[in-house]
């Protein structure tokens, strides 16, 4: 069991991080203190807005400097570190077994046409090859803050209240499989994809071997990691329209497909045939933050971030959506939303396997 919450201001108003922390704290009954995490979009709005902001956790041991040098070597192979510093943390709340570091980074011009693939390569290389370092976020103008601890502890540790973002996702963890460690907390991030997930993926073995065929490496010991990679593969690399890509994760049932008109039936059959390895099985409720440039079914290309929520096809996990003015919320429980927004215009339960998609107002 875990608890998730996400919200976005469709007017892209900056909202302080303490709000998401309060909401997540009210979900802590769903976690067991073995991990909490936050991701904020829009938190680096000024000088480093167009840099990749790598948040990297490095073991707090005597080997620290050596590991840091190895990390920097990988980064410098493909571009320039514009600025780097320790992510400011508060002492005395969580034992600092890893030191969070951030690098503001630009990819070298000569890789301009495959910049994002290079960043993915960098992340895979650091996670796979460097012992003692792992990347927790690699997007532009966003950052993941996660550790082993209760929601309020992690929020205080990273001083979340000092950041402002137009979209926040958060997660309180109750691990189902592996031992708790900082890298196993959610959100899982790759480029501007961030995923928080409640549930357990029974198809993980299949999903992992599917994405590994395309060069992704699952090294963070948690099934949720694979969701971020599947989304990146389908929507960024293969450019599948959003609604169809999400339908690959939670496909229509065959008996529904059989009843569809011919063109739709062929389409949904093709999705299941080509992307059977991307289907997520097992209970899940996910909230996702996305990069720019996603293509929609009606040809729209969204030039900005979007947020969506999705559950498994037979609704084994709770998910509630709500809106008030420009704010849109997705959460495991309604009370978490009302904790920070007591008055809501509309509250609804999305259908199983059908996404809730939030896009900024134009």
């Amino acid at each position, binding site marked *: 069991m875990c608890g998730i919450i996400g919200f976005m201001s469709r007017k892209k108003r900056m909202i302080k991080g303490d709000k998401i922390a309060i909401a997540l704290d009210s979900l802590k*009954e769903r976690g067991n203190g073995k991990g909490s995490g936050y991701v904020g979009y829009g938190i680096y709005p000024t000088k480093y807005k167009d840099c990749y902001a790598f948040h990297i956790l490095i073991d707090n041991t005597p080997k620290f400097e050596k590991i840091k040098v190895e990390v920097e070597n990988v980064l410098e192979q493909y571009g320039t570190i514009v600025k780097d510093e320790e992510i400011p943390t508060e002492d005395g709340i969580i034992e600092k077994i890893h030191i969070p570091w951030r690098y503001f980074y630009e990819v070298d011009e000569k890789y301009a046409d495959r910049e994002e693939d290079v960043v993915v390569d960098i992340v895979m290389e650091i996670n796979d090859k460097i012992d003692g370092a792992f990347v927790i976020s690699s997007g532009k103008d966003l950052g993941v803050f996660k550790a082993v601890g209760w929601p309020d502890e992690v929020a205080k540790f990273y001083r979340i209240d000092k950041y402002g973002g137009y979209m926040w996702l958060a997660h309180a963890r109750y691990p189902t499989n592996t031992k708790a460690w900082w890298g196993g907390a959610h959100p899982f991030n790759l480029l501007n994809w961030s995923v928080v997930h409640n549930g357990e993926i029974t198809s993980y073995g299949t999903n992992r071997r599917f994405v590994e065929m395309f060069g992704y490496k699952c090294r963070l010991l948690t099934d949720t990691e694979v969701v971020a990679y599947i989304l990146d593969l389908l929507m960024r690399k293969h450019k599948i329209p959003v609604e169809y890509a999400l339908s690959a994760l939670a496909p229509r049932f065959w008996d529904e497909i059989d009843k569809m008109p011919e063109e739709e039936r062929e389409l949904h059959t093709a999705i299941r045939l080509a992307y059977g390895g991307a289907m997520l099985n097992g209970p899940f409720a996910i909230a996702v933050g996305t990069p720019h440039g996603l293509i929609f079914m009606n040809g729209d290309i969204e030039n900005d971030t979007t947020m969506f929520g999705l559950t498994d096809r*037979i609704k084994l996990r*709770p998910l509630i959506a709500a809106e008030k003015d420009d704010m849109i919320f997705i959460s495991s*429980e*309604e*009370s978490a939303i*009302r904790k920070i927004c007591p008055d809501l215009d509309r*509250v609804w*339960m999305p259908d*199983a396997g059908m996404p809730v998609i939030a896009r900024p107002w134009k």
Partner: protein
Amino acid sequence: MEEVVIDAKDMHYRELNEKIHQILRENPDVKKIILKNVLGQRFIGNGLQKKDLTIEIYGIPGGDLGMFMSGPTIIVYGNAEFAPGNTMDDGTIVIHGSSGDVTAHSMRGGKIFVRGDVGYRSGIHMKAYKDKVPVLVVGGRAKDFLGEYMAGGNIIVLNIDEKGNDLGKVKGRMIGTGIHGGAIYIRGEIDKDQLGVAADIKEFTEEDLEKIKPYIEEFCKWFNLSEDVKNKLLNSKWTKIAPISKRPFGKLYTPDLM
């Protein structure tokens, strides 16, 4: 003291529930407990047995509201989260809003009235015995898997919105899947392919109408619905869904004795 008010703002559920029990211990005559500013506190009313007790909740109660409860009446002025009435034995729960997944899970007696919608797998494993017949009445809609594994009791879905207008075609799938006792009554038409396994559409008779009438009337009373709406509900086309047999899967197994 017959009426007590508790402000539950920022109160953890353990503290809140302990307060409720404390009141019941110290004031055996209390008839009504009012909870204000409830936001997500779970397990309210769990295991309570006092029949002449009403708990009014203002806000959003958390999961498992009234679980194992056997007697009191709980009125919620707001939405409920998952599993209100879970394994409830007796009493009444009235929700002036919607409730989440597995509402009335394993219910064994008593009544639940939800003004709005209920989530997935509501009424799952409801059971009945002799005079203990649980009832779930849903004002709006239920999501898929309604009445899964149902072994007894009645589920009534009214299919109306906040104003009492028809909501249109009922959309649920896998209705009554695995049902082997009890019945589901839905106001409106249902296609056979919306049913789950072991469920069948049976004839809705006068007897059925007499059976569900008192529950519809009680629903209208709780939510102040007009005579017009009540009459519309009673005079609509109803679909009755009931088991094909008591042992729908009896033929599936063979003894390992060949």
